[in-house]
């Protein structure tokens, strides 16, 4: 899709054009069970969006839909002008733009930390090894794991593995990073390390979409917070407003239980 061509910008999409990630009336169901019942949201370049809400409200599913890991039944998702739901979509091109980090790290256990980070740029982008290695070492330093390059995932703590996973994703130089409850499987000590890394990324202007249960973190780092429940966005707005005076009773109830 020609992005820079101003003639393609119709009057109705004029506002959406600058959004890097844009969801319109997205619906997704597993069999008869509808998980997402019409969600629309926009995330601009450099913005940090947090999705909060009770378990089972479709947050993780939503994030998986954005990089095409699970198909949607209705609506549209565009990333940088590319329609994710298009069957002709070049999924690999999309996924180079969208990095994703999971709750369970999912590092490749048979490769060292450094090899984990280098693998995708080497095999997918086919970049020269020297260049990839230099970048990988820089990324590992960035997530504060210098000295652990040669360690296998099994030898690293959960927090360390998760930071390697973030570095691995960053090695593809994505334009937007998706974080799917990345701290949910970690103990409180190591949560801090991982949040520190994400905070740094956000400060550098990386577009981030986070699903999180860390309310304090969401409040601090997000530009926009979405509260989802039962497959819809119940309420959204700047974090200060959502956390201080939410208008919807469901949001209030959820927050009062958590804060």
């Amino acid at each position: 899709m020609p992005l820079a061509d101003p003639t393609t910008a119709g009057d109705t999409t004029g506002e959406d054009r600058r959004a890097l990630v844009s969801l319109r009336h997205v619906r997704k169901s597993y069999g008869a069970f509808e998980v997402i019942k019409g969600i629309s949201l926009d995330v601009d370049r450099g913005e940090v969006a947090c999705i909060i809400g009770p378990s089972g409200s479709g947050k993780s599913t939503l994030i998986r839909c954005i990089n095409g890991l699970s198909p949607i039944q209705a609506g549209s998702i565009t990333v940088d002008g590319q329609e994710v739901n298009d069957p002709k979509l070049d999924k690999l091109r999309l996924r180079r733009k969208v990095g994703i980090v999971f709750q369970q790290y999912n590092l490749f256990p048979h490769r060292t930390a450094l090899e984990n980070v280098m693998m995708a740029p080497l095999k997918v982008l086919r970049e020269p090894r020297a260049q990839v290695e230099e970048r990988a070492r820089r990324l590992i330093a960035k997530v504060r794991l210098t000295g652990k390059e040669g360690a296998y995932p099994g030898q690293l703590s959960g927090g360390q593995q998760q930071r390697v996973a973030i570095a691995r994703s960053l090695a593809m130089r994505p334009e937007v990073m998706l974080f799917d409850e990345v701290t949910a499987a970690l103990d409180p000590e190591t949560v801090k390390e991982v949040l520190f890394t994400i905070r740094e990324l956000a400060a550098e202007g990386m577009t981030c979409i986070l699903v999180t249960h860390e309310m304090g973190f969401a409040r601090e780092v997000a530009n926009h917070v979405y509260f989802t429940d039962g497959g819809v966005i119940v309420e959204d707005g700047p974090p200060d407003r959502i956390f201080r005076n939410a208008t919807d009773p469901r949001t209030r109830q959820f927050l009062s239980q958590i804060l």
Partner: protein
Amino acid sequence: MILFLVTYFLPVEVRLPGGWRVPVPDWSKATLAFALPVMGNISEILRGAVRSIPSGQWESAEGLAFTRGQILRYVVLPQCVRRCIPPWMNWYALLTLSTPMASIFGVHEAVANAQASMEAAGARPELLLPFYLFLLCLFFVYIYPIAVWTRVLERRYAVG
């Protein structure tokens, strides 16, 4: 069972158009008969190993823009090899142990040969022990290195 099936169902020779007659040697039948069940088991082991790799591995690799082929080659299969080696090697040893059954085809393998030579020597009972001890040594020399090699491979892939 398969040994018998193959023995009787496969032709002794194949007639090609033009009057050519190609005999089907017994050893090739034996090879085929032994290979069939082992092939099935070996591939079943591999299938099980591929399925035992957590789906998160596929997902995260897909998220990194790997194609399915690349995921298999660089992520899934390398992890499978380690899980497959012990059962594969078991099958290899079992296969070796079952080779005496090749005599069904009239293939002269070690055990049949030993029996034949014992008979040729007049079937004296005092020869029984040395002959079979010799056979034992033969099998041991063949199988033991496999066991050692298995351990080496397991150690090499035992990371993570």
